[in-house]
């Protein structure tokens, strides 16, 4: 063996470090007391506990397992049959078929995903039916197939072709001959194909994202929609568990492999006992798979039984945006289901644009959505929302006057506000010379390289517009050009353009100033006492997320009942305590503890609020101009 030398060891150490450091960081933070991704404040197991209480995560976890198991099992059978067929082909047709088989592997997943979605939507319009588990299963079988074929084919090629003929020759008809002599030879290939398909299916996000309509969530989809603002430490805990399970399996498989390597010596003596480990592993595998199937079957049976009798309401909401019953809080969805004898199908999105695109694509149908201000005005103008019947929403009376009519829905006909908040400046008192009161501070050369800025165009332009005294909903080209110049000027003092990382960078004092959302700012301030928040004197954006009913809803009155339920004081309180944003409901506000009510960050005074306005949807050409200018600013 060649000696490795010191550079070799260093190189290997670096490689291993880069491979494993992220995983160990993740595991460490799964035990972190606080939600921060930067500061380790103490050891706790609470995320593990709440993980198992989180019905959303657990149900999508079971969904993922069931889907992966079924998809890879079907792909295993079909793929093996295909491989046998391909191996019997002539050279030319085999090459053609092999290339066709490879194509889905090489094809970008995004292309596969979108084409699947288009096909399913097309078929849905043609034949009826809904997208959901069935379509995802078809999609997964499709992309799992090549992996099975590619792992079975080499085994078939290694096979002595006369083995099959020998079985026929000995009187065995072709089909039993396949099972008796071919299958045992290629079973390892089939199994590794199955395992590969299983992991790919478990893993898949992009294709599932497009092929799943409403109502079927896999773990990756759920996780993605949960990490909208900050990674929920439950996800860290779940990832840590998955990693450990995979690690254990890997070690077990290697042990079995090592046993197998020693086996010929035993065979030499005519001893043919299967190693105990292998038997145990096989038995364990059967038990695990069997219990998964059983659990899933029971769950499905139950939910199937429910579906038959009860009306179903489908809700499309942001991730982490409703009280889920952790730590003794109210499980809002379960409470609603129980009270109104219905079933709620609850799905998540992570941006307004994602929600909008999904609804527009026609692959999904929802009853209730909770978009933000400007998106509501767009959806109203595109006739995507139903006018609400406020007879079914008496609790809307409880809305604070300010929220009964808004910039985006002036008559308040389409939406009932759910949460709101302002955008302001968060700053570190130890890093600034005096408390800022103007957006100008983000241009202050004294804090050069310590200033963060929103990385999305609408928010960034909004700040510049405020500073220059324009409306944040302006469509005037000259004003926008002026703002662009102002933003270019800012680049000299900026550390970077960011979005979610503000949370971490400000949290550990890596930056002095940043614009941010009030609710999140309050959370950060609770963890880092050096931080302060102010709504600058030029005024700011008042963002509102509001509940709406989607055009074409088949459960309109149930949807309105749901909106009404969300406005019940104790429900609203549970939600707002979970989300930490501001409530638009007077009675919920009154139920809050005094400290929160008096917190000027979350509930600013009238004077401050009078300086704020909400975003409305801009005309297409204004949006385009803004985006072009923004790209130019970023690129420079």
């Amino acid at each position: 063996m060649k000696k490795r030398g010191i550079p070799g060891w260093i190189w290997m150490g670096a490689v291993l470090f880069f491979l494993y450091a992220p995983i160990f960081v993740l595991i460490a933070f799964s035990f972190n007391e606080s939600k921060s991704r930067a500061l380790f404040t103490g050891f706790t197991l609470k995320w593990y506990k709440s993980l198992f209480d989180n019905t959303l995560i657990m149900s999508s976890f079971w969904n993922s397992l069931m889907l992966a198991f079924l998809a890879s099992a079907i792909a295993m059978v079909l793929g093996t049959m295909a491989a046998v067929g391909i191996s019997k082909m002539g050279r030319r047709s085999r090459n053609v078929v092999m290339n066709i088989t490879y194509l889905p592997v090489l094809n970008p997943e995004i292309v596969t995903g979108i084409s699947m979605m288009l096909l399913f939507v097309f078929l849905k319009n043609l034949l009826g039916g809904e997208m959901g588990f069935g379509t995802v299963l078809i999609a997964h079988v499709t992309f799992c197939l090549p992996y099975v074929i590619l792992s079975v084919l080499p085994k078939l090629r290694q096979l002595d072709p006369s083995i099959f003929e020998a079985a026929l020759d000995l009187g065995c008809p072709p089909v039993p001959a396949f099972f008796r002599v071919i299958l045992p030879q290629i079973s390892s290939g089939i199994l590794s194909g199955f395992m590969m398909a299983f992991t790919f299916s478990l893993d898949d996000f992009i294709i599932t994202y497009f092929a799943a309509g409403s109502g079927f969530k896999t773990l990756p989809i759920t996780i993605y929609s949960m990490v909208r603002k900050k990674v929920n430490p439950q996800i860290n805990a779940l990832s840590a568990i998955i990693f450990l399970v995979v690690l254990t399996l890997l070690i077990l498989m290697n042990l079995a492999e090592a046993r197998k390597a020693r086996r010929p010596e035993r065979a030499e003596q005519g001893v043919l006992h299967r190693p105990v480990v292998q038997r145990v592993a096989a038995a364990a595998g059967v038990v695990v798979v069997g219990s998964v199937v059983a659990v899933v079957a029971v769950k499905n049976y139950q939910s199937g039984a429910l579906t038959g009798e009860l009306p179903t309401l489908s809700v499309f909401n942001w991730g982490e945006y409703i009280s889920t019953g952790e730590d003794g809080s109210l499980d809002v969805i379960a409470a609603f289901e129980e009270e109104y004898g219905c079933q709620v199908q609850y799905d998540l999105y992570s941006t307004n644009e994602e929600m909008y695109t999904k609804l527009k694509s026609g692959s999904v149908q929802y009853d209730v959505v909770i978009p933000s201000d400007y998106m509501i005005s767009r959806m109203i103008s595109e006739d995507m929302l139903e006018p609400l019947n406020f007879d079914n929403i008496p609790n809307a009376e409880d809305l604070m006057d300010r929220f009964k009519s808004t910039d985006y829905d002036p008559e308040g006909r389409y939406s009932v506000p759910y949460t709101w908040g302002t955008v302001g400046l968060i700053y570190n008192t130890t890093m600034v010379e005096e408390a800022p009161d103007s957006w100008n501070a983000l241009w202050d050369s004294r804090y050069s390289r310590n200033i963060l800025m929103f990385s999305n165009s609408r928010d960034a332009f909004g700040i510049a517009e405020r500073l220059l005294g324009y409306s944040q909903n302006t469509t005037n080209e000259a004003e926008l050009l002026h703002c662009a110049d102002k933003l270019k000027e800012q680049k000299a003092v900026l550390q970077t353009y960011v979005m979610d990382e503000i949370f971490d960078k400000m949290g550990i004092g890596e930056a002095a100033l940043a614009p941010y959302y009030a609710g999140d700012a309050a959370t950060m301030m609770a963890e880092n006492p050096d931080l302060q928040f102010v709504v600058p004197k030029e005024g700011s954006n008042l963002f509102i997320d509001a509940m709406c009913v989607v055009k074409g809803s088949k459960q309109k009155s149930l949807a309105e009942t749901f909106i009404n339920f969300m406005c019940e004081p104790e429900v609203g309180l549970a939600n707002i305590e979970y989300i930490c944003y501001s409530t638009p409901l007077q009675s919920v506000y009154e139920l809050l503890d005094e400290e929160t009510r008096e917190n000027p960050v979350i509930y600013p005074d009238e004077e401050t609020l009078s300086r704020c306005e909400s975003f409305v949807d801009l005309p297409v050409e204004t949006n385009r101009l803004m985006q072009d200018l923004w790209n130019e600013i970023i690129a420079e």
Partner: protein
Amino acid sequence: MAKLIELKNIVLSYEGDRILDNVSLSIESGQFVTLLGPSGCGKTTTLRIIGGFATPDEGDVLFEGKRINDLPPHKREVNTVFQRYALFPHLNVFDNVAFGLKIQKLPREEIRQRVLSMLEIVDLKGFEKRRVNRLSGGQQQRVAIARALVNRPKLLLLDEPLGALDLKLRRDMQLELMNIQRKTGVTFVYVTHDQEEALTMSDVVVVMKDGVIQQQGRPEDIYNEPENAFVADFIGESNIFDGVMEADCKVRLCGRTLTCLDGGFGENRPVDVVIRPEDIDLVPPSDELLTGEVTGVVFKGVHYEMAVQCGGLQWLIHSTDAHPVGEQVGLSFGPDDIHIMKRLFEGSENVLRGEVTGEDEVTFCDVSFERPGLGLPEGTPVELIIQPGDIEVVSIDHAHLTVYLESLIYKGDYNELVVWTGGRSLLIHSYLDQQVATDIGIRFDFDKIRIAPWKGGETV
């Protein structure tokens, strides 16, 4: 004896190539029949047709008088020993042998009895629990034989079963196979390319080449009376020379007219003359005899193999007495040692039809060349005469033409090659050795091609 299996006018083509061309064969019960020939001659295909793994395009396969063309392999009372044994690697010796009996759903005890007694016959008692891939080649071979014979087939097919074994083991297994065949009385059809194996083991030898049966008969008849130069060359070693039949019982060879026993070839016909190396005695030179000089001696164990240069030809002689290199010797053989055969290729030169395709340009077999001063108008058919020595064998990359090598026979001075291209044979004389039944490349010496006006008719 009753006919067990009969093949009648079997034709089989694969991707345009004729693998079997009008093969007829009948095998009697209890015989040990060997199909012998070089690779690609169709012997394995014939076996596969009997086994049911290939279906003939034309012709009938009869088993005990019943047509079984369309009967699938698992319904035939025939078992096969495959070339590379094709044992089931996931089963042990016992389960491999028991496979066919288990398919028949025989009682467990009967299966056990039959498998054990069969393992005893093939001398593998005590190996029941071994994994087959832990056995030696010879042991695997015997498992394969046991696995086939335990089903008590009426016919056992063996496809070069000893090909993978070393020489010593092969000799032992040959004897063992003959014993087994005698003990069980099962009819064996055996495929091999080893002529010695065929002659040793068989009741009947069938010599095949290019999908055509060249000769079938008892081993002695095949050896002593080969029907053509191919058989003579393939079976044992032979001296094969170009001769001319002057009249019945008179053949001209090495400038002399020799007396032989064959006739019926007509007068002054080119023929192949075959003399077996062991039929020639080396004696002191005299005027009545062909004389020559010993140019090489090799000791072969049982005999000496000597090369003698005589009359411009190299003669091969087997003798138990050695003669030193350089010694002048006389070659003595009788009229009955001379075998006269029809030549594989009619004529001694290639006559092809070509066409003038441009000014001074001639095209034949998709090959064009220029002949300055030809002066014939475009479209004129011409006759091209090409001497066998004016065609050179080259690698396919540099070839004018790629052709299929049908046969190669050493004629004492050069190799006589018969190749096949575009529906006609060509005769080539070459000093190079080539693998038969493969594609080779050839180049023409265009300057030496004789061009004559076309005389009409079609010439091959």
